[in-house]
């Protein structure tokens, strides 16, 4: 399986730069999610890879094969050997399920008999072999989604593209399909690009995640890297919840760094990226589950605060604590004790789960 390599890709629509000089490699056989809020350029990136629009600058390679480069030529969509699952499913309403799934094979001039077998295999894979003779409108939303997936994999393309394929399904079905897609991807191992704005979907499905914002790539990494070591406050905010403090790095040793946070006397210990030097300013990201809350008056040192909202969610408490400095933080506590409004508390952060994010000096280019 070839990888998908994108170099210095740029696309403008009128005044808006939808994709601004991005470079990334979607590794072969991996499922990579492109994650970001709407308008971040993720769908444009996918459309550029699919060939629905042409880049203004930059190039796209599938393995060693040049796919698109305005200076050197553009391979049309139908010659790229890709499969795609659309948000709207885009099942052709006038064709039966079997004809929808078999269309790519027909275009590849696969003989009728082999074609029928391949269609059957693809439909078996999505557990819809009984629906071959139906029309799309006779199927439920989830079934239509699976037909769309079968159509995309039936002719064993080199690259598989997903454009928010699950956003039209209800929550329960979405979770089932997530597992199913992951399972199928493990079996066939096609290089896949999965565009979504749903962080849970991205984290559960993909080997790596590309987070985009305002037409640029903010960070690339495994779900765990992105959650625990966000390189940008937008990444920290977009993946999960977090509390951000203005902070400057004041010390560093092998294990931990220390940051000074405005309004606090003592520096706080935390983790920081290896390349950050003393004196750098930025944000300290403290995940809600990294906060430890105890009733005030204990012996341990801590910040003082008061519970200003307490929500019982079953397995956990979601607390909002107003710190004495004036800032309100979100806290998640396992439900071992009862909290109520106005409780005076002492708050401590787990240094291993606090991460310092340096403020970017200039637009960074990542590869």
């Amino acid at each position, binding site marked *: 399986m070839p990888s998908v390599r994108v170099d210095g890709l740029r696309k403008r629509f009128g005044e808006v730069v939808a994709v601004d000089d991005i470079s990334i490699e979607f590794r072969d056989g991996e499922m990579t999610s492109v994650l970001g809020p709407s308008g971040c350029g993720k769908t444009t990136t996918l459309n550029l890879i699919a060939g*629905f629009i042409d880049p203004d600058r930059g190039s796209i390679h599938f393995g060693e094969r040049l796919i698109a480069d305005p200076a050197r030529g553009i391979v049309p*969509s139908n*010659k790229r050997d890709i499969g795609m699952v659309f948000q709207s499913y885009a*099942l*052709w309403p006038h064709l039966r399920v079997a004809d929808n799934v078999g269309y790519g094979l027909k*275009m590849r001039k696969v003989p009728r008999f082999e074609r029928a077998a391949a269609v059957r295999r693809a439909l078996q894979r999505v557990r819809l072999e009984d629906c071959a003779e139906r029309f799309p409108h006779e199927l439920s939303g989830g079934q239509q989604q699976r037909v769309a997936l079968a*159509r995309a994999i039936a*002719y064993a393309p080199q690259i598989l593209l997903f454009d928010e394929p699950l956003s039209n399904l209800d929550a329960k079905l979405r979770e089932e399909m997530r597992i199913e897609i992951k399972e199928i991807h493990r079996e066939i191992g096609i290089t896949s690009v999965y565009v979504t704005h749903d962080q849970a979907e991205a984290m559960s499905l993909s080997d790596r995640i590309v987070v985009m914002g305002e037409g640029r790539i903010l960070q690339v990494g495994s779900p765990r890297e992105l959650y625990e070591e966000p390189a940008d406050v937008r990444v920290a905010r977009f993946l999960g919840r977090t509390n951000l403090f203005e902070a400057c790095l004041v010390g560093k040793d092998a294990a931990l760094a220390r940051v000074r946070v405005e309004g606090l006397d003592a520096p706080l210990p935390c983790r920081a990226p290896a390349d950050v030097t003393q004196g750098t300013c930025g944000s300290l990201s403290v995940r809600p589950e990294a906060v430890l809350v105890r009733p005030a008056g204990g012996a341990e040192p801590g910040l003082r605060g008061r519970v200003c909202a307490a929500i019982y969610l079953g397995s956990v408490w979601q607390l909002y604590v107003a710190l004495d400095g004036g800032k309100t933080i979100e806290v998640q506590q396992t439900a071992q004790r009862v909290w109520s409004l106005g409780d005076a508390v002492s708050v401590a952060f787990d240094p291993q789960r606090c991460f310092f994010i340096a403020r970017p000096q200039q637009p960074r280019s990542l590869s």
Partner: protein
Amino acid sequence: MAAAALTLLFLVFYPLFWLFYGSFAYGEGSFPRALLTEFWQLPGLSRALLNTLDLLLGAVPLAFLLALPLVFIVTRTDTPLKWLIEIAAILPFITPPLIGSVGWALLAAPRTGLINVLGRELGARGPLLNIYSMSGLIFVMALYVSPYVYLTVQAVMQRMDASLEEASLISGASVAKTIRNVVLPLSLPAILSAGILVVTRILEEFAIPGVLGAPSGIYTITTYIYYQAISYVPPRYEVAALLASLLMGTTAILLVLQSHILGGGRIFTTVSGKGHAPRILRLGRWRYLTLAYALIYIGATVALPYMVLFYAAFVSQWGAPPVPSNFTLANFVSTFDPTLSARSGLVNSLILAVSGATMATLLTLIISYMITSGTSWWRSGLDFVSAIPLAMPGPVIAVAMLWAYQGEPFALYGTLWILLVAYVTHYLPYGVRTITSSFRQISADFARAAAVCGAGRAAGFRDILFPLVQPGVLAGWMLMFISMIRELSSSIFLFVPGTETTAVTMLEMWQEARFSGVAVLSLTLITISVLVVILVRALAGAVHLSGPR
């Protein structure tokens, strides 16, 4: 594709160029001065323009007066037989104005009209009604344009969210105030747009003033161009070109005005598709009054003219009592006598309508595909160019054709080709409207999915897009066929002996007072149209079975 675009550009701009060239040719070099002085002095011209104005001032208000109560009856009352009224209200729309005016002339011509014949027998001294007058013209014209008012306003009233009215009533406004402050302002764009549509229809209408006005010397702008310029001896082509340009300019301005009124989506944003149905007024005993009104409307627009046409087509002698022994098929035999022009006229019309509709459909299919899938600058350009013929009523197209295709290099005059070219040009916008809207209903993802599967442009069009737009294509073909087979307003300018069409033969027979022949041809035309509609419906149904949407 490029060939289709070039064909479109040629079809629209070549005659247009000649039309303007012809206009400037007036006065042989002393163009502006000649226009200001001699032109307006042409005998009868100012009279014809005033007649046109009279016709507008009479027929537009009358059309509203006829249609608005009907809209109210259908959308807001519990009048019985509403389904029938709804169908009947658009029937005059389907009836060609030529046939309607012939029907009314047979009813109310001063001497021979059946109503007047009956009146004489009952002792009336003069004619009861004279349809060959300005009031007759206004009456028939209003009947035949009222469906445009009905359809436009009814669509808005039907979709109007009743909660808007209820909100006003709850706030303490009376019913009258609610109508004035809520209902009227909301439906005003629709009413204005219907008004403009009706004005353009009246301006371009040829058959009604041709049948009812011309015999008594009442000319409007279209009949003036024909009788006083084109069939004048010697023909005054420059005068025709100037008047056609004038007509086209007026129509263009009106259309631009209309698209401004409808533009900005005002009509669609204030009147959402959601909300609940309007309240139905319980009329009690009064509902029979509203029913009576609806029945009279249907009688005047559809029932009476059709009844008299049936009578005229089958009766052995005009004026004979309608009893079975007086009915015969002899009129059909004599009308379609091989030596007469009616037969060849029908053949010509069929050839023109089938080939014209087919060629126009193929052309508009490609153009519509380009409009909906091309790059933006050429998309809007083609869209605009294909709408230009909307501002060219039949007589305008015909005069432009006469200028463009009379001499080399395209000497088509005297053949069926010039009629074919005129028809295709005239009805292009209809096809483009119908087929582009079919394309627009298809999500772009369908074509993208085909491309991803490996289908090139041609294969994707053949396998995916075309099957999906096929119902729209069939509908477009049908619309153009029906319009072409009854075409009069440009054919009358372009035919020569031997290339008559059915509508032209009808007008000729009318002038020779061969009423039964005209009635026979009317019924033939209607029958063919109905058969085609049934056939296309059946075909579209078959398409649906093979692939429901």
